[in-house]
């Protein structure tokens, strides 16, 4: 259809100038151009554009894939880093907790030990006091007996010659009782 328009135009132009014009339509050229173009299109499409475009696409896909993979790997690494960071944080807090617990425990233990020792010493002191008291009383009674004996013996020695033993023991015991009463007061 366009060829028809062109040819019409060419006819008009040719009528104006008898010599070959620049706008001449040459059907031979159209024929050969069409054949050449179609053949070129077929040959290039099959042997050039298809492999070239395919390899371009492949490479683009490859680059895209690689970028995506890299992105993914980066994300994963970040995730891992986050996890490890969290873990480290957890471990730190745990360690802190453990240390705090240990400190608390030791504090408690210390306190307990101190309390225990205090109590023990108190008890021991008390025991010792009781013992001392007991010993004191023992010693006192022993002393009392000894003193009494000594007194009797000495009194016996003094009064042996003059007095009957039995009558005088009574008097002396009376004295000693009085004395012990005074001592107890």
């Amino acid at each position, binding site marked *: 259809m366009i060829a028809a328009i062109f040819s019409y135009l060419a006819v008009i132009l040719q009528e104006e100038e008898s010599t070959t014009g620049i706008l001449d339509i040459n059907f031979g*050229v*159209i024929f050969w151009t069409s054949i050449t*173009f179609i053949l*070129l299109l077929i040959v290039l499409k099959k042997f*050039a554009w*298809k492999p070239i475009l395919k390899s371009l696409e492949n490479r683009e896909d490859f680059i895209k894939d690689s970028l995506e993979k890299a992105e993914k790997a980066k994300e994963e690494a970040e995730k891992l880093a986050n996890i490890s960071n969290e873990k480290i944080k957890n471990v730190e807090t745990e360690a802190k907790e453990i240390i705090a617990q240990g400190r608390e425990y030791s504090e408690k233990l210390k306190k307990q030990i101190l309390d225990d020792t205090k109590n023990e010493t108190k008890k021991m002191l008390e025991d010792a006091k009781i013992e001392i008291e007991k010993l004191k009383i023992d010693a006192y009674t022993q002393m009392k007996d000894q003193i009494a004996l000594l007194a009797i013996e000495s009194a016996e020695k003094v009064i042996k010659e003059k007095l009957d033993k039995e009558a005088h023991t009574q008097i002396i015991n009376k004295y000693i009782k009085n004395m012990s009463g005074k001592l107890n007061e």
Partner: protein
Amino acid sequence: MNNFTTTISDTIQKTSSNQNDWIYRHVLDSKEISFEPMGTIHLPQINLFGIDISITKHVIYLWVASIILIFLLLYVVKSYKRSQIPKGFTNLIEIIIIFVRDEIVKPTIGKYYKRLLPYLLTVFFLIITLNIIGLIPYSSTPTANISVTGTLAIFSFIAIQAGGIIKHGFVQYFKGLVPKGVNLFIAIIIIPIEILSQFIKPFALAIRLFANMTAGHIALLVLLSLIFLFKQYLFAEIFVIPISVLFSLFITMLEILVALIQAYIFTMLTSLFIGLAIYQEH
């Protein structure tokens, strides 16, 4: 002074009648390839069913460009098989391919780009190769021939219509060309306009490429022919030669740019029109 100017105008008139052919011979298609001092190659005359389909100069250069293109791209394919990392020439071609794919085809055609990409890449690379081949001395530019650009435009037209028809179905596509819910009187005006615009689009494509390539070559040749125009004046040559050579160098540089830009525009517009056919706005 007056005498001098009249003689100049005289000679221009005289020589231009001869020089005209000289410029046209370089731009126009012919049935011989001339390598002037070495001689000319006469191409065979072929007739098929009474139609003259003889091979011409532009057809030969079209074939040369196609063969160069095929070999270059096969080299690129081979180098891709060797390693995935492009180097040197492969890298350049890859940049162009990615440019066509990502800057031209993807934004205009969208998700259907994969099916049309080979066609548009072929168009782009063929036009670039043809345009650049035309800059080599002794060769000629097939894209400066309206028959060649017209054929490429016919393929664009087919691609545009096929894109729309495959997407929407035959009837739905032509219904979609006319905006919905317009009043009858406006529709009477709009329908022919819409139909005409379908033909004007590829027509403009063909004319644009053809005119750009032809204009560049004619400008280049006119600048160079100034030297021959001023040949008969003593010393005039000395001033004219550097100027015309410098200007023709400038035009050649510009032509390199135009060669790239026109390939880009042709592909871009074809892709855009296919996109418009696929995504009908009305």
